[in-house]
């Protein structure tokens, strides 16, 4: 039995096809993240799981039940909204117990649940306050408390951290992760922030234009992107895409990289069968900033390049350098103590063991 099963779900508004055939299956207790740029359909999908929007085609199953046409209140779900949506005229206590009240839970039991939940989220001193007297972070916790009180089979989160400032966001992020580890309920979480996606999720579904581009664990999506969109979306600063020409010389694949006026031929040691059919043509090389570092211990599969440093951005834990390879701005991450000067040549090492290749026209990964 899956905790949540989405079968071939489609959504059209008039003539616009917003969701085109979504299929997802997750196990109980998993933390699923729906991530993508605005307009990709992730919020619409979440609303459809909640029952706040109608499904044009397809089925949604929660546990064993087909809930596709059920009201939100009959789906055994709870939701935390981006704007928290706390009832302004009720106290925190009343906000949390509202859903219980509607279900005619015994007053004594309501009290037990409210106490338990407020203790878990450390909002006990706030119980008699009204939402407008709370800070953003406190409101967020009350919103989570309201959802927790219902003890649902699935929690839905709709970009809950977007309204918080950066520092608070990082704090709340780990609190949510901790909560999930403690309570263990299935979660579906929508965000546009790929860092949240990476740190929180067990399973990530990257969406674009109403379709799931790729679904998998964070590390898998990071290391093995299926297309250029997913590769560029996950990871910050994002992956470098360098167009280059690939040649087959005596059975060995080589790409041409030009930097600071010098041409280099770099041998591809990875076994990528698909590359052969691109011999003599252009491909797109995908290499992450952290795979381009200062020269140090020789790695098994690496290339050396001298690059002209165009921009230097120290971030504290490392320093980001912008150089130019094959005419394209390339971001590299070097150790903060490594020497580099603006407009001067710096020797860089490219770790070729994990680079990926994409077809320049279809943007699909070359395997």
């Amino acid at each position: 039995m899956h905790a949540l099963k989405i079968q071939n779900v489609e959504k059209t508004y008039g003539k616009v096809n917003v969701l085109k055939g979504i299929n997802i299956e997750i196990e109980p207790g998993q933390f699923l993240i729906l991530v993508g740029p605005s307009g990709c359909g992730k919020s619409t999908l979440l609303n459809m799981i909640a029952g706040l929007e109608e499904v044009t085609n397809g089925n949604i199953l929660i546990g064993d039940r087909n809930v596709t046409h059920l009201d939100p209140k009959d789906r055994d779900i709870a939701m935390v909204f981006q704007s928290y949506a706390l009832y302004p005229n009720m106290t925190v206590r009343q906000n949390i117990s509202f859903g219980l009240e509607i279900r005619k839970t015994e007053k004594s039991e309501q009290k037990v649940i409210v106490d338990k939940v407020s203790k878990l989220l450390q909002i006990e001193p706030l119980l008699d306050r009204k939402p407008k007297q709370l800070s953003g972070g406190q409101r967020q916790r009350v919103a989570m408390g309201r959802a927790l009180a219902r003890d649902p089979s699935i929690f839905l989160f709709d970009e809950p951290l977007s309204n918080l400032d950066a520092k608070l966001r990082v704090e709340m992020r780990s609190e949510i992760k901790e909560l999930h580890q403690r309570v263990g309920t299935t979660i579906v979480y929508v965000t546009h922030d790929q860092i949240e996606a990476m740190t929180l999720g067990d399973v990530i579904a990257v969406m674009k234009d109403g379709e799931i581009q790729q679904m998998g664990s964070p590390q898998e999506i990071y290391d093995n992107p299926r297309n250029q969109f997913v590769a560029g979306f996950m990871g910050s600063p994002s992956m470098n895409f360098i167009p280059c020409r690939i040649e087959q010389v005596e059975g060995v694949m080589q790409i041409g990289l030009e930097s600071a006026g010098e041409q280099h031929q770099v041998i591809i040691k990875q076994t990528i069968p698909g590359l052969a059919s691109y011999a003599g043509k252009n491909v797109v090389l995908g290499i992450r900033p952290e795979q381009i570092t200062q020269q140090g211990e020789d790695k098994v599969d690496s290339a050396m390049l001298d690059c002209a440093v165009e921009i230097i951005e120290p971030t504290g834990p490392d320093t980001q350098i912008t150089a130019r390879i094959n005419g394209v701005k390339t971001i590299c991450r070097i150790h903060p103590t490594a020497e580099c000067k603006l407009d001067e040549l710096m020797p860089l090492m490219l770790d070729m063991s994990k680079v990926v290749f994409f077809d320049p026209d279809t943007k699909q990964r070359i395997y």
Partner: protein
Amino acid sequence: MSINRVLIYSVLTFVALLYLLPLVVMLITSLKDLDEIRSGTLLSLPQSLNFDAWGKAWGTACTGVSCEGLKGYFWNSVLIVVPAVAISTVLGALNGYVLTKWKFRGSDLFFGMLLIGTMIPFQVILLPMARTLGFFGLSGTTSGLIMVHIIYGLAFTTLFFRNYYISIPTELVNAARIDGAGFWLIFFRIILPVSIPIIVVSVIWQFTQIWNDFLFGVVYSSGDSQPITVALNNLVNTSTGIKEYNVDMAAAIIAALPTLLVYVVAGKYFVKGLTAGAVKG
């Protein structure tokens, strides 16, 4: 203070005096007797505070056929205003709620239709309404007039509430739906408690419009069912014998007092209603 500031304050104060003058003149005139009026000017103060004219205006002045002053008509207006304001406000709130939180296909078109209802000159429905009221035996009755005010007030109250409810985030309603609340529960437990400001605006606006109305009053009421505005006009324009200007003025002030009082007490809501009505869509 610079010359500029002195100039500004003087101009503003002068204009303020101009605005106040008519009210002051009305008050002064109502406290004089006819001799003082005939021998003095608009601004000459009364020799003593003579409330005779007020008594007359309230209880014995002639308003057409009967000579019983304004008191009966004052209560008529109250009888008309209270239910009309209450019902049009309640319906307006429900309409606004549905049009913003439970939209259906055509709900925007419906709102547009209603909006047009706020713009038409009422002269175009005057005759058909007269016929309809006559048909149902409601012409010349208070109930008929109440009905008319409710019908033509609905467009305005709906406009007020709809524009206000639009700014209540839909997420709030969604959260309540997930919690298990339905249409009525959401309205009474969540929407209504935060509606106090707009309810006040709607009530004050409707109260002022309906109390001050003359057109509907003069066409659809007669005799004992007339509102105070109609009675006032009759009182002032009945020319039986000498014109008693002091009674006229006292009567006008009596008719104006309720809305003036509401304005003084809750003026800012009145302004909100005015500006909300002007900022359409």
